[in-house]
């Protein structure tokens, strides 16, 4: 996912869960069934999981612009020339 997609996925997750919670509560309350409220909410959680967790393509509409490989060759990485003394590793018996 790209950055934009991550934001959308998080917002979508929060909104969907709250909507299913409120909808489930109101339906269960007026139908007089606690079990109905739990079923609607559980269904909502499963649906939200399917929509927001996997890496769907619509989350990747603003893909990150990685540097093109041909550009890299034009600007070679500078060599490190400093002489660093290597420490002798202590011998353990």
């Amino acid at each position: 996912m790209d950055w934009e997609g991550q934001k959308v996925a998080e917002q979508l997750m929060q909104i969907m869960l709250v909507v299913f919670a409120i909808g489930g509560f109101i339906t269960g309350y007026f139908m007089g069934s606690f079990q109905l409220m739990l079923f609607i909410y559980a269904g909502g959680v499963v649906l939200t999981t399917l929509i927001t967790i996997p890496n769907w393509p619509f989350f990747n509409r603003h893909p990150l612009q990685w540097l093109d490989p041909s550009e890299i060759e034009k600007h070679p990485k500078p060599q490190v020339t400093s002489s660093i003394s290597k420490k002798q590793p202590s011998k353990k018996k």
Partner: protein
Amino acid sequence: MHSFGYRANALLTFAITILAVMCAIASFSDNFNSPSPTSQVQVLNINWFRNKPDGDDEVSMTMNISADLQSLFTWNTKQVFVFLAAEYKTRKNSLNQVSLWDGIIPAKEHAKFYIHTTNKYRFVDQGSNLRERDFNMTLHWHVMPKTGKMFADKIVMTGFRLPQAYR
């Protein structure tokens, strides 16, 4: 939201928090229920009334217990526990409560009942204070919720008296 596991964790935690809030609101909604229960108890017969060898009085009676507890049930009620207690005052104790019968009502349909029974539990006094004793029959109930707060209340029925002498 950097990875699959991160999103899954965030969703699960948020979902469970919302579930806790929903249960709290469901329990709170029980306060809007204004119940109107009724009940009546008749003592049909005193089967026997004696002083036990260890010194305590005991009485056995047959009663009709009828009640309508349907208005106690809400969408958030699991069951109603109801019991009938004989309550009286003696010289030694300002309040004696002896449970004579109890039952569990699992659903609203069963909450309107009429039973004819002897006392399920023994009516024994601490001492021998029961002769000519005035007592109240109090029907107590506990409304046990599916989630949240339990409500308890009672109806006091006065006007009962035990016989003057042992039978």
